């Protein structure tokens, strides 16, 4: 048994938008799968901890229970969903599938519903797009169709895993504003996963930072951006090119991210951390503790100023 997430914490209120940021292998996608009950399909499971949705405990719930939640209560846009449409089926067939998975609509009603959904995600000429297959659509259009399928049953929560990663910047901008508009129109909460802190800062109220399977910092976007309280969050910010001065080196995090199966003992970030000392190497991965307006898993959270010179 190989731990891929250990010590991840995330909570959000109704209608709130929370971002999860972290690098590949940090456990972002696994956490999403835990939240929609699909870990078993990927040969994984929840060993400890709880998943509560609307007051209901879902960790270890049978598939029968999850079927009533997934799609209906929690919409999900999987990572690389650009490849998520079946190439041989029309958009209509696939959209109608996600609508009638629960309902008992006639074919005619379902089609009307599908058109309405496509219009909801601002797809022009919805009738024509219904007849199209995925290769006839641009990346941005395909992502809109995936969003339409995810919101088909009016979920209370939408989980979007890297929804704009493979898209051009101009299309990314369109998709992000679409997601924001839909959230308001449908009163949805949102969990947005991204490796790009700038994307999350644009769309979310709160953010949770993951490193090597653990939550290392969480709190309001503004607080983490102004005064990060974990060295890793700070590093993610200062290594960004949009803040860099041309001609000067970027402040890169030394070394490589700890990969699954070879997490260091102690705090998992210590080999790359300038604040690390004996305690960081010796003790286990610290839990999130409140500091300022946020939560931090760094035992030296109050010494962050030392990193700025």
């Amino acid at each position, binding site marked *: 048994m190989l731990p891929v997430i250990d010590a991840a914490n995330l909570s959000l209120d109704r209608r709130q938008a929370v971002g999860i940021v972290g*690098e*590949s292998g940090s456990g972002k996608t696994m956490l999403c799968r835990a939240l929609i009950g699909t870990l078993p399909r990927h040969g994984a499971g929840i060993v400890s901890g709880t998943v509560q949705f609307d007051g209901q405990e879902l960790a270890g719930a049978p598939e029968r229970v999850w079927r009533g939640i997934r799609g209906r209560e929690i919409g999900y846009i999987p990572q690389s969903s650009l490849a998520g449409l079946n190439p041989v089926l029309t958009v209509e067939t696939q959209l109608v599938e996600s609508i009638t998975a629960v309902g008992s609509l006639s074919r005619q009603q379902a089609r009307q519903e599908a058109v309405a959904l496509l219009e909801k995600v601002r797809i022009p000429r919805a009738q024509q797009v219904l007849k199209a297959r995925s290769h006839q659509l641009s*990346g941005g259009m395909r992502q809109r169709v995936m969003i339409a399928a995810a919101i088909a049953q009016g979920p209370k929560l939408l989980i979007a895993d890297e929804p704009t990663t493979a898209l*051009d*910047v*101009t*299309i*990314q*901008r369109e998709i*992000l504003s679409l997601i924001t508009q839909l959230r308001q129109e449908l009163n949805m909460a949102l969990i947005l996963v991204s*490796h*790009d*802190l*700038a*994307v999350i*800062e*644009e769309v979310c109220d709160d953010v949770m930072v993951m490193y090597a399977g653990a939550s290392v910092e969480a709190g309001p976007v503004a607080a983490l951006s102004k005064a990060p309280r974990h060295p890793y969050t700070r*590093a*993610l910010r200062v*290594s*960004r*090119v*949009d803040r*860099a001065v*041309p001609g000067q*080196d*970027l*402040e*890169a*995090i030394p070394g*490589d*991210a700890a*990969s699954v199966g070879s997490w260091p003992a102690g705090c998992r970030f210590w080999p790359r951390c300038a604040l690390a000392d004996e305690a960081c190497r010796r003790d286990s991965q610290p839990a999130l503790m409140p500091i300022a307006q946020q939560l931090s898993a760094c035992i030296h959270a109050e010494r962050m100023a030392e990193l700025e010179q």
Partner: protein
Amino acid sequence: MAALTSEAEEKLQHDAITDPLLEGRDISVTFGRGAEALDAVRAANVAVDGGEAVGIVGESGSGKTTLARVLVGLQRPSAGEVRLEGQPIFSAGTEQRMPRSERWKTQMIFQDPYSSLNPRMRVWQAVAEAVQVWKSLPGAEARAQALQLLNAMGISDDQARQFPKSLSGGQRQRVSVARALAPDPKVLIADEPTSSIDQSAQAQLLNLLRRLQSERELAIIFISHDLGLVRYLTTRVYVMQKGDIVEAGKTEDVLERPQHAYTRLLIDSIPGR
């Protein structure tokens, strides 16, 4: 038609370099023929000076990768020619490949470090192979040079003995750079080199590219859809849209006073703005 405004054209003239190291003159690339024909690149003029870093920005389908492939000799232009140190080395209308004596001078690294390395070769072998091809050295020496190159890119001897699959995306991309540097080229074309690696690895790679540019006087053509990266790394930039270069000039000028609507759209789309 290249949609340059007169002001942008003036600026292009003004900023053009007189004696470029590598130059693409009136490059057009058309795929297919007749009604199916697609102009991937239309009459593009690009140039890079020795030790200079220039950017080519645009979205998918803008023609930036096709243009880069012409410059390294992987794609024959339908019209125009590539010049290196003032000499035409690759042009439309002939069957000749870019001559081997010139090919080593321009090397390229690709977007996807997962598919650009042979999974069955150990990391050092992938680099030693390039050293052998370009420098015709005996095996032991090629291996020594490969390890030296890899070390300079921050890849340890231990990592060099691994297969690419056990390296992270950032490490693999640094291996690609080592491989590209094997012939000691004069120009490195980097096609979206950071788009599939993590942010902390991105900063390491960018620092590395900057160091190579200053220490080896390596010219760099940096292809990206990310204007933030281009702003940080380059001093001149070409903006491409649907096969045309729509704006060109000093990076600072183009980003601060964009003349073309498309450039403005790209700038406004940067997350966090």
